[in-house]
């Protein structure tokens, strides 16, 4: 296991640089938007990765509620943290693209709004984990994760209806995508997923070590003879 980590790290680094080359050099330039469109290769894979991580968070939380295994809790925590980071990337790269293409940084369009709400829900999850001090934080967080995940369909559905009642902003035409662009997109997604997995993995190990250290310290202070503490 320990040896697999640097191997995966090197592989991810190679894959990420290859994906960067593909996205910035190899992929054809979009006809109307020009080079700005290339941010799409970062924006979309980040979104997919974030959604997968949020789903992992939901699944791990359910597993924790049923089995009460600490490992499931750590997976839930880690996936929410990394998911929020990727979701932030989505929310930041979106406006950077939108400004030159739509002429505005932000619009309360369906996808933007629902991604923002999703981000809010998972940030509140991280807040709970940070502010909750008791040993039952995992159970509380898992409960919140389940409620948050259940909220997601409501968010999409309500915002979809909310937005279809209003004039749609100018979208960058539906149309079909160039197969080369799709190829680059998928390679980027693969690279981003590997990267996310790598980050989650090291974060998992860190959290595990942290908990082991906390436990050992707590045990030590219990075991230490009373006199030596003074």
């Amino acid at each position, binding site marked *: 296991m320990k040896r697999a980590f640097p191997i995966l790290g090197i592989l991810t680094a190679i894959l990420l640089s290859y994906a960067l080359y593909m996205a910035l050099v190899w992929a054809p330039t979009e006809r109307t938007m020009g080079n700005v469109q290339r941010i799409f290769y970062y924006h979309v894979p980040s979104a997919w990765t974030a959604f997968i991580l949020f789903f992992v968070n939901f699944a791990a939380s359910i597993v924790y*509620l049923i089995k009460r295994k600490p490992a499931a809790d750590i997976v839930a925590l880690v996936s929410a943290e990394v998911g929020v980071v990727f979701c932030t990337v989505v929310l930041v790269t979106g406006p950077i693209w939108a400004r030159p293409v739509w002429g505005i940084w932000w619009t309360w369009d369906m996808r933007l709004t629902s991604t923002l*709400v999703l981000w*809010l*829900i998972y*940030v*509140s999850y991280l*807040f*709970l984990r940070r*502010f*909750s*001090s*008791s*040993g*039952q934080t995992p*159970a*509380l967080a898992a*409960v*919140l994760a*389940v*409620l*948050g995940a*259940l*909220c997601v369909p*409501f*968010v999409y*559905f*309500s*915002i979809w*209806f*909310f937005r279809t009642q209003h004039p749609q902003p100018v979208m960058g035409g539906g149309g079909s995508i160039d197969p080369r662009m799709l190829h680059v997109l998928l390679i980027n997604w693969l690279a981003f997923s590997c990267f996310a997995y790598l980050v989650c993995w090291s974060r998992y190990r860190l959290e595990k070590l942290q908990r082991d250290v906390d436990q050992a310290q707590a045990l030590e202070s219990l075991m230490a003879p009373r006199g030596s503490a003074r």
Partner: protein
Amino acid sequence: MTGPTGITRATLLKDLRLEWRSKDAINSMLFFSLLVVVVFSFSFDPTAEESRQIAGGLIWVAFLFAAVVALNQTWAREIRNQVLDAYRVSPAPANSLFIAKTLGNFIFVSVLEALMTPLLIVFYQLRSIGPAWQLLVVAVLGTWALVVNGTFFAAMSLRTRSREIMLPLLLFPISIPALLAMVQSTTAILNGEGARFWIVLLVTYDLVFTTVCLLLFETVLNAE
């Protein structure tokens, strides 16, 4: 021995009696929502036509903020004399307590809404174009949505640091779809448009979240 409904009734009556004697929650909610309404009025200075457009949002934001005031006090009272600990070790079902607290909060927030409505009508010269009885349906469904999640999250934030601020941080993001439905349906009814989709959405939201809260409340109560 009292059954689950007996426990619910006893807790509810105790809360209502306490509230009737102190009037803490209702007074602070009333004053708070009054402040929100006045501040909004100064901030936007709407005409009668404009206020019909923004009233849905204004009313529900005022009630949402005010409800947080009451929700924060829900469980605080039970912590003081270790009532929750006693409840935890007793064989009483956790959900009886949850239902009692939710009903209590529902009554408080409904009273607040009933008292605030005439004031809103006067302040914003509101007149409904659509059938006004539908507003009552929206009010009941919307209040339940806020209160059921609010009571649940208030119990959840009990064990956290700075719990007063934790409740809105947890409640608001998850309430966004419900809030959107409440605001949109209210605005639609006031302007004489159909609000069917939003009411159906609210009903579904209420059903789903009430069920999940009932399923998970025991976990939250026992978490310490």
